[in-house]
């Protein structure tokens, strides 16, 4: 054994655990049970959105004329005549003829017709991620003789389109619009806030005023004005990016303030002064030394900004000036439930709203957990 190895200050002999900033954060984050649950819920939702073509039994524009305005279909295990079945099944339905009301939407199950739930069934053709064509769906129903049935676990809308399918497809728009918007917000916030904090003086003064002005305008009316400006002729993708930019229009101000105050408070910290004295360039100081020290803070602020954007998209689309059909988003879906009559007759049309609430709740809880975890002074 050499002398060097005996030295207690070397790693090998001292036997201590080493954790970097992120590992410490993750450890603190894990203590926040609700935040962890929220994280997994969000992973699940984004996973569904990513594989929506495969997970859903139909495509968003499939119409089931036999099941218009259909309530959520139950999965049954027991049949009034055949008794218990291990494999859940659904019934066939027929429209009840009401002599007094031609437009009656009541449906009645046909007990003779049962369809077993099965996995990996062949159904409507689709193109997975626009790459290859297939007709394999995660689940569906089949009768014993192979005749097609239908399964609408969240019901159908007035055109007989499957709400569950549309909900999952819609999540692709509604969930990603927040992420893309926040990405844009982070870039704007860091650049503008960084300039304000580092340059200070009149530049800082001007940027501060602009932020104050933007924060004092009521967001929604201005959002409405901006999105009314999106040309009707635009394709779904263009509208999507248009809305994202509109949502980020206000979003960056909060982050810019955080970045600015961090820059200001950090400008005279020892490690920054030391770097400066050692001759590091301005860019190196900013990106190598200052930015990492409050990156966790930025991530937290960004996470907290996502729900606002999801709510914003939903509200705009709900009003008919955001995403437009045939594009499906949660806001677009909620348009169908705009009046009391529709909700009283078809409460399941509000299910997309429930999704919005759950996702926003999860983001808020996760943001809470992140904030606590990112704070190095908290035990």
């Amino acid at each position: 054994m050499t002398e060097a190895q005996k030295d207690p200050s070397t790693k090998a002999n001292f036997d201590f655990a080493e954790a970097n900033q992120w590992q410490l954060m993750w450890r603190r984050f894990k203590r926040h049970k609700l935040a962890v649950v929220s994280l997994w819920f969000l992973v699940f939702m984004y996973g569904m959105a990513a594989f929506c073509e495969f997970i859903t039994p139909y495509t968003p524009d499939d119409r089931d004329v036999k099941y218009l305005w259909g309530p959520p279909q139950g999965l049954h295990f027991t049949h009034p005549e055949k008794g218990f079945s291990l494999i859940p099944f659904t019934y066939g339905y027929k429209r009840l003829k009401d002599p007094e009301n031609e437009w009656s939407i009541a449906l009645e199950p046909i007990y003779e017709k049962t369809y077993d739930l099965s996995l990996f069934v062949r159904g409507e053709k689709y193109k997975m991620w626009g790459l290859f064509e297939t007709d394999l769906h995660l689940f569906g129903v089949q009768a014993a003789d192979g005749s097609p049935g239908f399964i609408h676990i969240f019901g159908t809308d007035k055109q007989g389109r499957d709400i569950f399918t549309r909900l999952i497809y819609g999540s692709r728009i509604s969930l990603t619009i927040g992420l893309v918007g926040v990405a844009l917000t982070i870039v704007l916030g860091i650049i503008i806030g960084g300039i304000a904090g580092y340059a200070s003086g009149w530049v800082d003064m001007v940027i501060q005023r602009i932020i104050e002005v933007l924060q004092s305008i009521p967001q929604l009316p201005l959002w409405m004005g901006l999105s009314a400006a999106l040309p009707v002729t635009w394709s779904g993708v263009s509208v999507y990016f248009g809305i994202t930019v509109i949502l980020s229009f206000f979003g960056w101000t909060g982050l810019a303030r955080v970045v600015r105050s961090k820059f200001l408070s950090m400008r005279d910290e020892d490690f920054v002064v030391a770097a400066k004295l050692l001759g590091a360039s301005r860019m190196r100081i900013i990106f190598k030394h200052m930015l990492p020290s409050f990156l966790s803070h930025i991530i937290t602020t960004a996470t907290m900004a996502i729900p606002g954007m999801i709510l914003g998209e939903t509200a705009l689309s709900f009003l008919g000036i955001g995403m437009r059909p045939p594009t499906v988003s949660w806001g677009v879906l909620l348009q169908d439930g705009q009046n009391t009559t529709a909700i009283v007759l078809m409460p399941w049309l509000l299910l997309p709203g429930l999704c919005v609430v759950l996702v926003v709740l999860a983001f808020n809880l996760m943001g809470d957990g992140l904030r606590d975890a990112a704070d190095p002074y908290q035990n």
Partner: protein
Amino acid sequence: MARYVIRRLLVMIPTLLIISLIVFVVIQLPPGDIVTSTLEDLQSQGQEANEETIAALRKTYNLDKPMHMQYLSWLGGLFVGDLGYSFMYQQPVNTLVGERIALTMLIAFISIIFTWVVALPIGIISAVKQYSFTDYFTTVLAMLGMATPNFLLALVLMWFGFEYFGVSVGGLFSPEYINAPWSFARIIDLLSHLWIPMVVLGIGGCAGMVRIMRANLLDELRKPYVTTARAKGMRSWKLILKYPVRIAILPFISGIGGILPALFSGSAIVSIVVDIPTTGPLLLNSLMNQDMYLAGSFIMILSVLSVIGVLISDLALAIVDPRIHYD
């Protein structure tokens, strides 16, 4: 103090100028103008308009002038209180917006009161009884309140009111009171229709307020002066209400400025859902029909009100908080 007020008022001028510029740019963004959309209407009815009519229309609406001249004439009008002319309603904007702005402010005002009445006690209780059942329960409720979109809550309340009380809660008055003269019964009827926006907006505001109140009060409760007072034998609730709460309550006052824009935003969408004639429905309509002066003036007025709200809450804070000196 007087100097501070004057300085703040002076700062407001450039702020409002910038806002007016932003607003004007935004309402100018849609391609085409009211004349093109009128033409489209005419064409869909099978009528053709000739060049002269189009030019005449543009002239009457001042649309033939260059952009900056349009802006300056609109801005000049704003200074003397002339909000422009609504193409859609063929009326001056002033006559259209007055009542709606008043109603919007009324709803914002009662929502703030509702928020305070609900959020204050809840915030105090969940801070004093930290980690109790009440604390967890209200925290969960507050989180839910923050996560629910305004319009969804309005929809659910409408559905609830219809399903369980059999009343249709849309609109501002019940049918029998719409044209009735003002009376006590009519006021009651008005209030019975205003509770939905009040509750919806109030709950949205409450959620944030409860959490702020709780956090602030918790910070205060840990301070030495609380321990000292307690050691001297001061009664618990009297102590809490007299000292820490007085400090923790300050964000409520400084927060008015911050929540006003949010309230105006929220009341716009809730009013559209429950069909209450505030600024919201008319704004949406004017935006969709490119009625630019109507839309622009609406956004402008709401912004001005928000800016004034911030000023008032800053001044109120200076009065309430003796530690603040403005010199």
